[in-house]
């Protein structure tokens, strides 16, 4: 029998979920995602791919910031390392894509050690500034290492084929991004229930207490950087596959800000929250565009060029309102709704 609070077997304590309903809905979602290319337009699929890449990036950042408490503004830097490693290997050395994508992750992981080491002595805003500086350094290296990175001219990323399919557009790219997002999601969910995950949470909650309990701060902080950056590098590699052109402008600071916004908006520390936040913020501009286009009596035409600014303001206002009234983010809203549903008519 399943209860709300009690577990009958030890295995239930570490299961992802012991609810058949949850597994049933998860399966239904997976089937829907698998069938999406059959019903969604090419544009819809492009947005879905962008959202899936954002999910990979947000879950990765959640490992570092949400689970370990290390604030990073260097996401754009790690993304560009992954993207350039993937792009250079594919375009210049014609390495198969099944090697270049993990290589993108590995390159970002390796580079993350450079930032990870100072993080052992820094935290909070000091670490945020350090990671931000790292992103600038990466930017400079890309611009000046012209023989390798093609410098300011950027790089066209072509020739990615997997099982005979061109995985740079359409359904093949979608399935690749979906597979990567699912792999990242399950890897992170599993990690968070292991000794490593619990050590990260202990460090986040109180690093001195964690050390007193025997947690090796050096090891676990570096591990958080390396694993998080690996997934961010994968996201960068996927980004380069979708865009097919990369240069430093593609990896601007706003990407780091958007990644932070995703995990806060979704619910800091929660893998599901990071996923929800990334999906929501990826589709919000499109939802706003469609809403404004549907304004009655030609409202959008009346607004003229101001419609773009108003949409931008609406984007910000929605984020502010959600965080003001639901500081736990989307995942908090979801938990409230679930409680309300299961406990109705009792007060929640």
């Amino acid at each position, binding site marked *: 029998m399943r209860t709300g609070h009690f577990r009958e077997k030890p295995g239930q304590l570490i299961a992802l979920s012991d609810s058949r309903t949850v597994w049933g809905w998860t399966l239904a979602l997976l089937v829907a995602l698998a069938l999406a290319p059959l019903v969604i337009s090419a544009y819809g699929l492009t947005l879905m791919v962008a959202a899936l890449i954002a999910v990979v990036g947000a879950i990765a950042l959640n490992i570092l910031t949400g689970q370990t408490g290390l604030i990073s503004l260097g996401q754009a830097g790690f993304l560009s390392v992954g993207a350039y490693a993937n792009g250079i290997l594919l375009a210049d050395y014609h390495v198969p894509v099944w090697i270049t994508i993990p290589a993108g992750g590995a390159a970002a992981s390796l580079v993350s050690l450079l930032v990870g080491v100072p993080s052992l002595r820094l935290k909070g805003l000091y670490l945020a500034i350090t990671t931000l500086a790292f992103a600038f350094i990466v930017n400079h290296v890309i611009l000046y290492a012209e023989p390798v990175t093609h410098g*300011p001219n950027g790089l066209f990323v072509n020739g990615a084929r997997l099982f005979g399919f061109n995985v740079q557009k359409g359904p093949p790219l979608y399935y690749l991004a979906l597979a990567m997002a699912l792999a990242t999601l399950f890897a992170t969910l599993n990690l968070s229930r292991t000794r490593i995950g619990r050590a990260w949470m202990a460090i986040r909650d109180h690093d001195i207490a964690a050390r007193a309990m025997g947690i090796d701060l050096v090891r676990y902080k570096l591990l958080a950087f390396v694993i998080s950056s690996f997934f961010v590098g994968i996201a960068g590699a996927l980004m380069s596959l979708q865009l097919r*052109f990369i240069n430093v402008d593609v990896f601007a600071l706003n990407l780091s800000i958007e990644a932070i916004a995703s995990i806060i908006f979704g619910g800091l520390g929660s893998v599901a929250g990071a996923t929800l936040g990334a999906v929501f913020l990826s589709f919000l501009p499109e939802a706003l565009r469609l809403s404004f286009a549907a304004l009655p009596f030609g409202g959008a035409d009346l607004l003229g060029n101001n419609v773009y600014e108003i949409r931008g303001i609406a984007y910000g206002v929605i984020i502010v309102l959600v965080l003001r009234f639901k500081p736990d983010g989307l995942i908090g809203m979801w938990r409230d709704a679930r409680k309300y549903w299961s406990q109705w008519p009792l007060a929640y």
Partner: protein
Amino acid sequence: MRTLLASCAALLLVSGAARAADPGVTDTEVEVGDVNIMTGPAAFVGKGFSLGSKIAAAEINAAGGINGRKLVVITEDDGYIPSRSFQALTKLIEVDHIFALNGTSGTANVMAMMPLITDNNLPTVVTEAPASLVYNPVRPSVFTFGANYADAFYAQLKYIHDHGAKDGAWGIIRQDDDFGKEVEQGFDRASKEFGAKMGPALRFKKGTSNFSAELAQMKEAGVTVLANGGIFAGAANILAEARKLDMDIQSAGVWSEGIPASARLSAPAGYDFMVADYVSLVGPANDKFKAMAKQFVSDDELANISRYTYVSYIGLKTLAHAMSLCGKDLTRACTIEKLRGLKDFDTGGLSAPVSFDNPRQLSGTAVGVYQYDVKAKAFKALTGFQQY
């Protein structure tokens, strides 16, 4: 009988194929896309550009459209972010089914859109960021209108040299990207050719706003001719810093400084700075354009006409001209062929005539040099359009 039926079926198929128009063309409309910077700090560029498309479309439609079809421009905002340009063009192609593309935002943005442009064989006229990356290598459906930054800077420095450069060194301050690289190429060419005494060659990151250290170096080196590679507020800050140090300089700038908003930012420094441009900034052609535009846009919009309005207008007029040459059976292939054969298309004096009948499919490479008169708060033409 079977042969007859097969022949009829084949004929139907062939005629059907012949009538099947490319996306974006109906019996009554032709849709052209425009991806632009409509939000963010550089929004005035996109808004100026969008205005040009609006004026061109209105003028063309008032004259009967393109062989009876109304020209419709659909604008999408990219906020100057390359990944959003990619998404915006995907939307224009997949949802709006545009026939051709006129607005292409910045250099990195157009490069991010390039795979989609080539995949869809989309007739595209690039007028906003005519960097050499766009036409090197040549893409069959892409036509570039505009000079490169190297020529623009060379033209200004040549003018300064020919008309008496002040004694002292020449210095350059430029962004550390593809755009800055082109600026430096023009500076290098001019300084070598004219045997200038070389001052500092400094680079900065896009978005930098404090140039006190850089300008102090320039002052220390005795720079009197400055190639100012900053754009918008950056260029204004460089000049403001030079004024703070009381430097006596002749300044050459980027064509983005030729728009009223930029000039207003730079004016307080008090330098009669120069710009070079491939479209006319002042003169009878501009007056005529504004008089024509008056009937299609509001007074507020009229006041916002800038060089970006002219380049967009020229781009769409060129595209529309090529489309009209295709007659009723409008296809992308035909439009590209007509663009490729375009020779001396008159822009009413807003630029040198447009010709794409060259291997690079590149036109508008001639530039004119202009100088901002701080007292009169207006630009004056120093040279006509010339090839450099």
